[in-house]
């Protein structure tokens, strides 16, 4: 691995090593571009992943304080953990469950498709579906996505057998084990899925794609990557002319460092990406970097999620097997007759025993609460993944009162659900309940909305610089050599789990950055 000088201003600094940052690091370094990759977390490995759920959570999760407000259920049920993403090399690709659907063409034209909706701040994507599809295809090949490119799907688990039978009873047709970045057979030097059910704790088989053991080691092999772990970016600096030229960060010892940069790519997950841009305010950029539009941190989307459990009178052992290996896609359509715009997917889910009462069930205690857990063997599970509408006032800001260990304000997350969000969730929960009842569930339990994992849209791509933060390449409208490279740039979330889109956009952005550098534009 390379070690570049702190004063070397020919390097590109990438902040964050997850789906966006890790992929971008590989793509730039293999083109001969020197990259310093700053990662706030430490580095784990297949060996070191803990398989004790509570320990694994602490090992991988971003646990630094965030505050929150608003009427969403997360504020009530998970006051100290509004979002659940990772702080480790590989970022959230270490704990993700690897579902890789594509956004559909109409989802990229949300404003046109859905029309004017009160309170929503919808716009269309500045990229055409045809353009994005080229990069989806590249991303799917890179990640080894199942049911694409002749890669077989994963076999059906017990939990999926229940989902499949229930879905057929309701007449659903598009039901399968999913497009997953989980090896159904050996691929890319990684083993196949042995159905551990420990996707979220870090896949000890490495069967699940994660930048930790794919893109990052590949980037290291080029000799152009300087990965600095336990290094937390606190500020992006700029020259008088407005171009960014350095990143200030705290190293593993807590010492402040300054890395010079030719260009900076921020990929810290929507929450920390927003926070860093806002923390980097200056006399030239008094509202934060790249924020002349006032859109940084606004339009926060997280997708509509939530558990539904079916209790049956026979064992299912739903924890056995890949966590999310099942999907129903029939509701991923726009049909306003359902009472809402946008669509949702129904995805398979299971939770380990220690996590179920903490995350999977609504607040409760006593006989009724305990009786659900008494049926642990006999539970089947499904999860909603639906589109939420961007609203200007659903946003990430700097908390006025709470500071982190370095004295910097922590991120504050505010979400007031749009009526469309609530209507979509209600419809999904109704369908999922009917499904389980149709095949004889003794009881259906509707769970809470868990801490958000699909954090997007807070530095969105927009054709008009007044509507967003970046152009169609994730290049900020205000600063030519400052890029955003994570889910923040999604213009709207759609109903697809976001990682495949983040990877596709990173592959595309890397081409653009390399061209721009060659042309002397960056």
């Amino acid at each position, binding site marked *: 691995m390379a070690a570049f000088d702190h004063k070397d201003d020919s390097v590109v600094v990438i902040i964050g090593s997850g789906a966006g940052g890790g992929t971008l690091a590989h793509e730039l370094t293999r083109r001969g571009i020197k990259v310093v990759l700053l990662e706030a977390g430490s580095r784990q490995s297949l060996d070191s992943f803990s*398989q*004790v*759920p*509570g320990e694994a959570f602490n090992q991988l999760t971003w646990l630094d304080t965030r505050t929150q407000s608003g009427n969403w259920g997360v504020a009530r049920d998970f006051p100290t953990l509004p979002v659940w993403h990772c702080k480790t090399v590989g970022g959230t690709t270490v704990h993700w469950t690897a579902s890789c659907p594509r956004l559909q063409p109409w989802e990229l034209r949300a404003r046109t498709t859905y029309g004017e909706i009160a309170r929503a701040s919808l716009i269309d994507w500045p990229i055409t579906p045809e353009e994005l599809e080229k990069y989806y295809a590249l991303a799917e090949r890179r990640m080894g996505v*199942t*049911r694409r490119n002749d890669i*077989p*799907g*994963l*076999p*059906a*688990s*017990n939990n*999926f*057998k*229940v989902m*499949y*039978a229930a879905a057929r009873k309701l007449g659903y047709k598009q*039901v*399968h*084990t999913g497009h997953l970045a989980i090896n*159904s*057979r*050996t691929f890319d030097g990684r083993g*196949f*899925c*042995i*159905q*551990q*059910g*420990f996707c979220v704790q870090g896949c*000890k*088989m490495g069967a699940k794609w994660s930048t930790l053991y794919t893109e990052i080691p590949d980037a290291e092999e080029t000799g152009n990557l300087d990965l600095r772990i336990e290094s937390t970016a606190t500020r992006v600096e700029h020259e008088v002319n407005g171009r960014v030229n350095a990143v200030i960060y705290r190293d593993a010892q807590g010492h402040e460092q300054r890395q010079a940069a030719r260009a900076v790519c921020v990929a810290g997950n929507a929450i920390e990406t927003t926070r860093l841009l806002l923390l980097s305010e200056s006399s030239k950029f008094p509202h934060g970097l790249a924020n002349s539009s006032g859109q940084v941190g606004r339009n926060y989307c997280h997708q509509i999620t939530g558990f539904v459990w079916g209790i049956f009178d*026979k*064992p*299912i*052992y739903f*924890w*056995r*097997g890949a966590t999310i290996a099942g999907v129903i896609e029939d509701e991923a359509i726009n049909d306003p007759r359902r009472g809402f715009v946008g669509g949702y997917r129904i995805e398979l889910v299971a939770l*380990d*025993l*220690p996590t*179920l*009462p*903490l995350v999977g069930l609504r607040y409760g*205690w*006593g*006989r009724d*609460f*305990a009786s659900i*857990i*008494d049926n*642990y*063997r006999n539970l089947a599970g499904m999860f909603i993944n639906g589109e939420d509408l961007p609203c200007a006032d659903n946003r990430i800001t700097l908390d006025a009162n709470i500071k982190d260990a370095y004295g910097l304000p922590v991120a504050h997350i505010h979400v007031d659900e749009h009526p469309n969000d609530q209507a979509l969730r209600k419809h999904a929960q109704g369908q999922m309940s009917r499904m389980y009842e149709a*095949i004889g569930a003794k009881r259906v339990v509707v769970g809470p909305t868990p801490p958000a994992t699909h954090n997007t849209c807070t530095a969105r791509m927009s054709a008009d610089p007044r509507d967003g933060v970046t152009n169609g390449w994730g290049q900020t409208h205000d600063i030519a050599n400052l890029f955003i490279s994570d889910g923040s740039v999604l213009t709207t979330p759609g109903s697809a789990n976001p990682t495949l889109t983040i990877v596709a956009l990173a592959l595309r952005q890397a081409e653009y950055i390399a061209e721009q550098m060659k042309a002397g534009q960056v």
Partner: protein
Amino acid sequence: MNHPLPRREFLKTTTGLLTGIVVAGSPLASIAKLRIAPGRQRAWAVPLSAFTTAEATTLMAMARTIAPHDKLDDAAYALVIKAVDATAVKDDRTHKTITEGIAGLGAGFAKSPESDRVAALTKIESSEFFQTMRLKTLQVLYSSPIAYAYFGYEGEAFSKGGYLHRGFNDLHWLPDVPLEASGPLPEPEEQM
């Protein structure tokens, strides 16, 4: 459960002791691989450093009311109290919150019928005392090997080859899923 400290240390730091009997054939007996001969019993004891035995008994009753699983060994609930005790030893504020909360419930709480205990806890549901105990109970109770055995959860699978050949698809009371909606099992020759 033998205490790891020498006897003198044990006497110096112990403020209370939770005790119970292991039931032959229970999940705890099998987890602990205790050989309990017919007609004999085995007891366990959990030493406490912040609470008295009487206080801990109230907390035990509270944990059992928050998460009532009648046939789950007391030993599983004792682990919750041990965790609360460990926090209270380190943190005076927690210690004060818990001891005051226990006093508020009164001496008769542990022996009162479940409906009375539920009523008493419902009254204090919004208190920091109750919320601390609820969260600790949920965090600890379902994380122990005793609970894994009781609820049938098989846990970590990597060291056992996953569930691929250990029942991930052994459900037969519903029709099998057609191959086009799922996928083949990995080829045996691929397994190296």
